[in-house]
């Protein structure tokens, strides 16, 4: 045991050492407490949930600070060193995604605490468990552990998708669950093949083993590409993206807002395995070449066409999520750190903005009564702040200056300028942006400006402080990310630089000791 246990620096504070696991433990403890507090009514569950997201956000800020020292913090669960034990690895990318999830889940929970959570049972524990799965998926450094956290996240999401009831949710839930179960089966096959060929499931060790000459290269490549296919299903790359618009549009508004980060889990996973494990090994360096960029561009075009045809604001927003997923899926195939940095900035703003639009769609639908958020002229809304929030979010979503969406897209376009498919990327992204702008401008005008005489003006709907602050929290990044573009994009650059230094990650996780391996037939 002493030989394998990680060498801990005794000078380190105990708390700093255990900080990495806090984003997973806090919501998990909250979920258990909420189940225990069920008898005390929904107010108790709400308070526990809100305390949990507050603590989670504080922990996430701390992790961002810890990760910004530049070293990869490795947390050995069970105190067995990698690759024998399971580790969590905190680098800047993980910390950034943890913070993003914490903020997004905070806003979604605030919104849901204003009545949505009473439309079904067990909303609060499920919500916290979904956060556990998301944070775990971003933090883990082990591929099988990634599978487990994916399943935690998915199981909670299945139940959250059905929350509130109704035929549409059951129906799209059934398709969503069946598809993801098939995806999980593929994930396990990929992991089995990876373990069979490489003898390890630790990401850093996989990276090292892929470079060794005595592996079965064909089988290893097959395992890697299966893994990418599973992540592409979660990230909704084109032939695997038909589930997304139905599932996201059917989910309740705060659930859909939280789901926005789920496609990002797939994208970040592809990025991580590609940059850390596949790209440095000659056997797998060309794994994503030639097919990922065309498919990602096709996803963007497909999403833009879908957005033009969307009948409701929530459908349109689901297509926007798909468009940003397609844009971000370009990145793993383009290995420059500069592209990654631009994409990370774009990822932040697109997550917030899409979540904000889901919440706004629900608020608009509530005021318009039976017209819901269908794009038809209807009653006057009497809500200038709602229109203003929509304007901000929509302008940032399509990338109009001076909002964060514009900066993100500009940085991305500039970063890909020297890559081979630059012409295709530029024309598709700009054309798709134009289509999305058309869709949002036309339909936004119809929702907020066109009045039809048949409908009496909408009654006064009071929006409580919780929902108002949730919307404010999600819309404000469109401005804040512009105002603080310099520090944020600097952080994104440092994140990308650290991610692309895959050797540093590998040696941080595995240490410098030689790993003795058995000879297998």
């Amino acid at each position, binding site marked *: 045991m002493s030989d394998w246990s990680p060498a801990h620096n005794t000078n380190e504070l105990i708390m700093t050492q255990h900080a990495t696991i806090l984003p997973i433990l806090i919501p998990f403890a909250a979920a258990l407490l909420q189940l225990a507090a069920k008898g005390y009514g929904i107010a108790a569950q709400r308070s526990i949930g809100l305390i949990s997201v507050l603590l989670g956000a504080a922990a996430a800020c701390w992790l961002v600070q810890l990760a910004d020292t530049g070293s990869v913090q490795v947390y050995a669960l069970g105190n067995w060193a990698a690759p024998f034990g399971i580790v969590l690895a905190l680098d800047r990318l993980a910390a950034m995604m943890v913070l993003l999830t914490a903020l997004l889940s905070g806003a979604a929970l605030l919104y849901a605490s204003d009545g949505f959570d009473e439309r079904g049972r067990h909303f609060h524990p499920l919500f916290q468990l979904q956060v556990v799965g998301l944070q775990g998926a971003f933090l883990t450094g082990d591929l*099988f552990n990634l599978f*487990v956290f994916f*399943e935690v996240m*998915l*199981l909670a999401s*299945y*139940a959250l998708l*059905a929350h509130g009831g109704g*035929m549409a949710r*059951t*129906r799209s*839930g*059934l*398709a969503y*669950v*069946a598809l993801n*179960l*098939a995806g*999980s*089966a593929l994930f*396990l*096959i990929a*992991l*089995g*093949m990876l*373990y*069979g060929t490489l003898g390890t499931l630790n990401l850093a060790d996989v990276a090292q083993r892929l470079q060794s000459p005595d592996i079965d290269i064909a089988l290893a490549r097959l395992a890697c590409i299966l893994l990418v296919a599973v992540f592409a299903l979660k990230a909704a790359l084109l032939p695997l993206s038909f589930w997304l618009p139905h599932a996201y549009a059917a989910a309740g508004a705060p659930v859909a807002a939280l789901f926005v980060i789920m496609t990002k889990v797939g994208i970040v996973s592809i990025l991580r395995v590609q940059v850390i494990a596949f790209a440095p090994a000659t056997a797998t360096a060309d794994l994503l070449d030639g097919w990922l960029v065309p498919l990602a561009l096709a996803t963007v075009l497909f999403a833009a066409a879908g957005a033009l045809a969307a009948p409701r604001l929530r459908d349109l927003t689901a297509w926007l999520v798909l468009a940003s997923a397609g844009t971000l899926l370009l990145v793993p195939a383009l290995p420059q750190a500069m592209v990654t940095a631009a994409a990370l900035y774009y990822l932040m703003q697109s997550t917030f903005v899409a979540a904000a639009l889901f919440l706004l769609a629900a608020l608009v639908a509530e005021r318009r009564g039976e017209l819901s958020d269908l794009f038809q002229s209807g009653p006057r809304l009497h809500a200038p702040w709602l229109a203003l929030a929509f304007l901000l979010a929509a302008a940032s979503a399509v990338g109009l200056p001076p909002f964060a969406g514009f900066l993100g897209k500009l940085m991305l376009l500039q970063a890909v300028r020297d890559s081979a498919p630059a012409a295709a990327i530029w024309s598709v992204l700009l054309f798709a942006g134009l289509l999305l702008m058309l869709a949002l401008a036309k339909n936004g005008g119809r929702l907020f400006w066109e009045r039809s005489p048949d409908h009496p003006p909408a009654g006064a709907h009071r929006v409580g402080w919780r929902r108002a602050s949730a919307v404010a929290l999600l819309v404000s990044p469109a401005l804040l990310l512009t105002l603080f573009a310099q520090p944020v994009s600097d952080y994104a650059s440092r994140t990308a630089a650290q991610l692309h230094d895959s050797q540093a990650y590998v040696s941080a996780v595995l240490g410098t000791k030689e790993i003795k391996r058995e000879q*297998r*037939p």
Partner: protein
Amino acid sequence: MEALFSAAIGILTACGIFLMLRPRTFSLVLGLTLLSYAVNLFLFASGRLRMDAPPLIRDGALYTDPLPQALVLTAIVIGFGMTAYLVMLALRALAESGDDSVDAKEKT
């Protein structure tokens, strides 16, 4: 043994995929169950097939890889829970639409 084992996995997978592509939720559930059996067997084989060997490392003695057994156990538990949820969802869809085809419309 390898041939028998791989044939079993192949047949289970083929049946599972065939059933998954059927238009009824009942066959979908059955198909996913068969597929997860196949996957569990496949995972089990990833540590190599070895007869009459304990999953313990002793000096010089033959042993079998214990890790896939732990992986399979995790996969079984997760798959079981997921399938149970899918059955519940399928029953709810059946109750709401009176029809267990996967793209049924609402009962009118």
